[in-house]
């Protein structure tokens, strides 16, 4: 179980996260919605140890992210996919994917490479396995980014606005893959602006507003009267009525 308890995080005097509680159970897909600047990405960056926080606790299968000695174990259980892909520019797609399994998990290189190629095949990129990031489109880069995360066989997949830097067509490429992952039991914490998609794959929706988690409910409830009974959620959803929800 991944659990966040009373998490508080400020940048200077600006409170970005204010007493956030959240649990993610194995097999669950939880989407984090909210306006830009509501603290969604910061939440993920606290979970994977990229940001230190002032108060509260985050544990990943019991390992405390705030304790330097446990952070490595906590990180080994999760993997992050980034908005800006963040691929290693000097490595091919396969090398990007194989680096951490070889260097961190100390697995045999040949086996890891074969697995990396199989992963690329699953996302429709078998033919681009030996291409460098600069030679790939945005959607292709993000699919490699997803493979790189999956290659670590994480128990929790953290997705930080993974389609925000992509055009609609490339977004669809990436969402198709996430859909398959969601239906095959991958545990995901999905920070996104893709509301309709979040609705279609998530078990639960949580809603952040100015650093406070103001809703955490099953997807069906969030998009029904129960969610709309919260004024801020109703307002947020009303702006999206143009989109097919």
């Amino acid at each position, binding site marked *: 179980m991944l659990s966040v308890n009373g998490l508080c995080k400020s940048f200077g005097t600006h409170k970005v996260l204010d007493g956030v509680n959240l649990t993610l159970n194995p097999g669950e897909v939880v989407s984090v919605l909210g306006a830009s600047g509501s603290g969604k990405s910061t939440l993920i960056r606290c979970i994977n*140890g990229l940001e230190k926080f002032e108060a509260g606790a985050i544990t990943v299968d019991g390992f405390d992210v705030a304790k330097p000695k446990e952070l490595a174990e906590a*990180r080994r259980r999760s993997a*992050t996919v*980034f908005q800006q892909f963040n691929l*290693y520019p000097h490595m091919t797609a396969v090398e990007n994917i194989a680096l*951490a399994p070889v260097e961190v998990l100390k697995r045999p290189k040949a086996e890891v490479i074969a697995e990396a190629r199989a992963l690329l095949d699953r996302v429709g990129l078998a033919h681009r396995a030996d291409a460098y990031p600069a030679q790939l489109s945005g959607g292709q880069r993000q699919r490699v980014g997803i493979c790189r995360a999956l290659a670590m066989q994480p128990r929790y997949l953290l997705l930080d606005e993974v389609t925000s830097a992509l055009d609609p067509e490339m977004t669809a490429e990436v969402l198709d893959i996430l859909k398959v992952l969601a239906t095959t039991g991958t545990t995901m914490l999905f920070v996104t602006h893709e509301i309709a998609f979040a609705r279609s794959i998530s078990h639960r929706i949580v809603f952040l507003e100015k650093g406070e988690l103001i809703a955490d409910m099953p997807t069906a409830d969030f998009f029904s009267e129960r969610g709309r009974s919260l004024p801020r959620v109703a307002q947020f959803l009303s702006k999206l009525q143009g989109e097919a929800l």
Partner: protein
Amino acid sequence: MGFDLSILAKHVPFLLEGLWLTTVVCLGALAGSIVLGIVVAACRTAASPLARRLSAIYVDVFRNIPFIVQLFFFYFGLPEVGIYIEAAPTGIIALSIAGGAYTSDVIRAGILAIEPGILEAAEVSGLTRRKIFTKVILPIALRTSIRPLGAVCVNLVLTSSVLSTITLNELTGSAKIVAAETFRPFEVYAALLVAYACLTYAVSGLFGAVHRHVNRHTAGEVA
């Protein structure tokens, strides 16, 4: 007495020996200053304040002392305290140390130019600091550093002429000897001018070619 290059003909083998020595010394100093530059750049971007402080002092000190003074200290000063090193190794060591101050700056700039997100991806994947440096930071930084390292190397070639002052008969030292023997300094030094220009031009071209080769897959991202 007109301009007559033919008087140099019988001295060409001797001058080529000098050129060879210049080449060897510069290659040695290039290797030395790159290794030193990597270590110092790592220290300058390290988490430890002490490592950052000491490495910054090294860079400041060696960039602010004339090379000839550093050289005299190593060659004429150190024997006084019992450390005697021959001229050629002294030249390579002195050039490496002086050049290292510049290469470390170049490599440090290459490190600082790496997108933070790339390092974050490496960090959350669980790679150790050492692995992040050797597998991600250094390969990226060296790729972006090749062109400016070429400029440092050109400077090494030019500066190596100073080694003639410690009895090292590299290209300039050999030319001095030939000029003294032939009493034709005009021709000798004219040839030397051309030789250095060709040498540094070749070095620039070589570094340009290496830059294009290693960055062929990242064209557009690495200018």
